[in-house]
């Protein structure tokens, strides 16, 4: 599985340090759509080059997991008339991997409208990968009549509140957070006090040398508030993560790649499998972006995270659906 050949050159790597202003964000976005593998050690990312080169450097010890996001099963608009087909293609890519991931995370918007048949279709395809899947809901997964009951009945087992939880795997502490409920007028994504208090107490028993992976639907950092891309009380969550040596925050929602490193924290958003959305500020709204049909799968894709035992290093690899 090699990625497309339009990977960024060395200069583009500097974009990782881009600021959170609009200009910086737009610059960051210029490398979206490419596949690069990063290792993160002590909060300082290093590019290992293209995926093909990098894979050889990821030793067999440790484990890897996949992130899929924003499958939007039920979406049938012209921007992608076949969201089932593109999710299936994503899962087929995962099945074809020479080293099977230990599990998958889905960072929300499994469905488009929280309908039972949409959840059923998504689950049938995703489960065919044959690995455990950890979910968090997107705002599209809780628009059923009972505002989230359908999601919790399927995926809420063992979770708290609106579906948040933590677990440990291979020496890494994982936190699945929910920032799509009880949203306030005029606001952004929202974790809420109850979840934040739980988060603070959950982390109390975790040593600072434990690598942390946080995943949630809406980006936890403020990406582009004009489009609601950010989490109102995300900064409070991040303040609880400051003492850890290695923190990786994985989000979806914006249907495009974006990465930012701030101190010990690496933020990364995954491509969708459902449909692309425009880069911040480049369209009148964040709605689905129409691209030529033969280019659609360049914009959709999956993310793989490799963890090297004992090294605190996480390597994030994005692969477009068009990569074979």
């Amino acid at each position, binding site marked *: 599985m090699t990625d497309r050949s339009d990977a960024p050159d060395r200069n583009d790597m500097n974009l990782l340090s881009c600021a959170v202003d609009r200009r910086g964000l737009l610059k960051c976005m210029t490398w979206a759509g490419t596949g690069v593998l990063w290792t993160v050690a002590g909060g300082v990312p290093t590019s290992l080059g293209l995926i093909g080169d990098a894979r050889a450097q990821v030793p067999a010890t440790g484990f890897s997991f996949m992130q899929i996001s924003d499958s939007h099963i039920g979406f049938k608009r012209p921007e992608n008339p076949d969201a089932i087909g593109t999710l299936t293609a994503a899962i087929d890519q995962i099945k074809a991997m020479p080293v099977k991931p230990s599990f998958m995370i889905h960072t929300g918007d499994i469905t488009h409208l929280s309908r039972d048949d949409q959840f059923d279709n998504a689950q049938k395809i995703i489960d065919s990968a044959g690995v455990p899947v950890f979910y968090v809901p997107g705002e599209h997964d809780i628009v059923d009549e009972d505002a989230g009951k359908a999601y919790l009945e399927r995926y809420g087992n063992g979770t708290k509140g609106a579906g948040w939880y933590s677990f440990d795997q291979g020496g890494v502490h994982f936190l699945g957070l929910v920032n799509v409920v009880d949203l306030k007028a005029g*606001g952004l994504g929202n974790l809420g006090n109850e979840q934040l208090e739980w988060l603070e107490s959950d982390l109390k028993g975790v040593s600072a040398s434990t690598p942390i992976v946080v995943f949630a639907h809406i980006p936890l950092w403020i990406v582009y508030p004009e489009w609601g891309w950010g989490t109102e009380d995300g900064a409070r969550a991040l303040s609880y993560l400051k003492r850890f040596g290695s923190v990786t925050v994985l989000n979806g929602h914006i249907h495009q790649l974006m990465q930012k490193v701030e101190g010990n924290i690496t933020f990364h958003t995954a491509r969708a499998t459902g449909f692309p959305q425009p880069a911040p500020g480049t369209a009148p*709204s964040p709605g689905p972006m129409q691209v030529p049909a033969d280019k659609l799968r360049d914009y959709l894709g999956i993310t793989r995270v490799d963890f090297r035992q004992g090294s605190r290093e996480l390597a994030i690899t994005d692969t477009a659906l068009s990569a074979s």
Partner: protein
Amino acid sequence: MSTLSTSAHRRLVAAAALSLVAFAFDSPIAMAAEAAAAIPAAAAPAEISIDNFTFGPNVLTVKAGTTVRWVNRDDIPHTILDKQRKVFRSKVLDTDDSFSFTFAAPGTYEYFCGLHPHMTGQVVVTP
């Protein structure tokens, strides 16, 4: 005195026109015709269009008793609910779906999209 009664009379006519509007809701053409015939001043649109993640008009002023209809013209679903989550809440509106609510009491109603809360709007209801 005569001013007052004229104004009261106008209010009655307006109320009658508005009840016609509400009654004829399922037939927009009839609705427009009745409203225009009865009182031209009430021809202000009682429809809010959702386009590109914005509510238009963003501030809509209507008389008490008016039924306001939101129509989602985006390729993405939206919901409508009032800021306090007490007065109205729509089901999820897919493309071309609509939601209607009749504003009986005067006041300023702030509302937003429950999925994309940066989308906000206002309905100002006058007596």
